């Protein structure tokens, strides 16, 4: 069967020690048996390694930071679309999703298909709304509270007790064992990601995660649970193993059925010694370890492309547990000319 030729734009090319999902998503798309895909990288920083990975990324364009707003993003995408005729666009950063969700109808009129959560789905799983989310979908969630100033930290001693987790609104989380540590974490994380800061009750146990995709009609198209077996000092998985975990699968099925989740997602859960599951975060996009799903027999990014193009996709029925991934680092040699081109022209 000949493969269909399409062009897919992907962001999240920062394949660094705390990697974005872009490169794993691209690897999954390159493995597709249905599509021959030209990959257009969308980058924010000239040091994103994916820009220079020409075996995976055919051409890269810089796009404006999310803070520049929707109009400047739309203008830039219009230019890129004129050059490349993008069929599908997969944004991979939490911080950029709001703009893409708002622009998705306009993009569709231009011929650029996306498959993103609705604004309501995106908002109701925000870290500061997670307790309400848990109540709504019958998922246990550690108690959490958002704060906007270090002055609120002392009052937390009685409310939460130590330790508790200090989390940024998009990324980063630190366990604080004292008010001093909590203040330091507040300042560090708010300095990077802004306010509010979320305080979450510390839940001891093993972190288990699930990467999944919903079709927007209540069906879980694919899902693979994973436990990190080697964790970096930033808390990221350097290695992981696919699990058999029917409880976690049921949590994902129920959530997708309950809120008609549309697109990729990641559930981050804590499994306690009593085998209870607590939701600590939902990411509204594929995680950076999504390629493990491909390794187990489920190509979630390919399914997302098909859904974006309006095709009906049947749910995956199985995956192979026990498959592992181990990341590695690699010194990519880059010609100065390439760096100069992306720095000055904004495309490479």
């Amino acid at each position, binding site marked *: 069967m000949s493969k269909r030729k399409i062009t897919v734009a992907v962001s999240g090319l920062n394949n660094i020690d705390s990697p974005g999902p872009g490169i794993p998503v691209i690897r999954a798309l390159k493995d597709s048996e249905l599509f021959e895909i030209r990959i257009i990288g969308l980058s924010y920083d000239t040091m994103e390694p994916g820009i220079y990975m020409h075996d995976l990324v055919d051409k890269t364009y810089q796009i404006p930071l999310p803070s520049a707003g929707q109009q400047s993003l739309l203008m830039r995408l219009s230019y890129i679309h004129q050059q490349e005729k993008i069929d599908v666009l997969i944004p991979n950063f939490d911080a950029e999703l709001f703009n893409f969700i708002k622009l998705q109808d306009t993009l569709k009129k231009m011929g650029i298909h996306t498959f993103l959560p609705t604004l309501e789905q995106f908002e109701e799983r925000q870290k500061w709304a997670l307790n309400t989310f848990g109540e709504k979908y019958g998922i246990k969630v550690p108690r959490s509270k958002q704060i906007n100033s270090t002055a609120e930290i002392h009052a937390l001693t009685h409310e939460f007790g130590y330790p508790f987790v200090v989390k940024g609104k998009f990324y980063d989380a630190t366990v604080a064992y004292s008010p001093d540590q909590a203040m330091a974490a507040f300042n560090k994380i708010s300095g990077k990601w802004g306010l509010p800061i979320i305080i979450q009750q510390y839940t001891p146990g*093993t972190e288990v995660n699930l990467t999944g995709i919903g079709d927007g009609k209540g069906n879980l198209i694919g899902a693979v649970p994973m436990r990190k077996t080697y964790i970096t000092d930033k808390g990221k998985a350097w290695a*992981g193993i696919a*699990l*058999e*975990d029917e409880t976690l699968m049921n949590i994902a099925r129920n959530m997708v059925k309950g809120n008609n989740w549309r697109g990729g997602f990641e559930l981050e859960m804590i499994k306690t010694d009593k085998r209870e599951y607590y939701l600590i975060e939902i990411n509204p996009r594929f995680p950076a370890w999504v390629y493990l799903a491909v390794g187990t027999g489920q190509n979630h990014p390919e399914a997302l492309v098909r859904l974006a193009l309006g095709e009906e996709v049947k749910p995956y029925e199985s995956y192979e*547990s*026990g498959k592992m991934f181990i990341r590695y680092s690699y010194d990519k040699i880059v010609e100065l000319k390439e760096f100069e081109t992306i720095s000055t022209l904004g495309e490479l």
Partner: protein
Amino acid sequence: MKLLKNIALSDTGFVFNPGTGDSFSVNPIGLSILKDLQEGKSEEAIRNRVIEDYQTDKETIEKDLYDFLKMIEQFNLTDYHE
């Protein structure tokens, strides 16, 4: 005590729990005990079998078997509801 149904035992002594992702290595005696548990043998039957196979005093075998079974319980290899 029952071993969890999905525990994978290899003849090399590699033990894998697909529910937690944990893996362990056991020696031949450990492997034979895990296989006995997987076949649903009782602790008494396992004890008698080990006493028969290994020429050691009964007390030592009872103590070591008890330690081993407690250890696999702690490592979440046994059925929680048993």
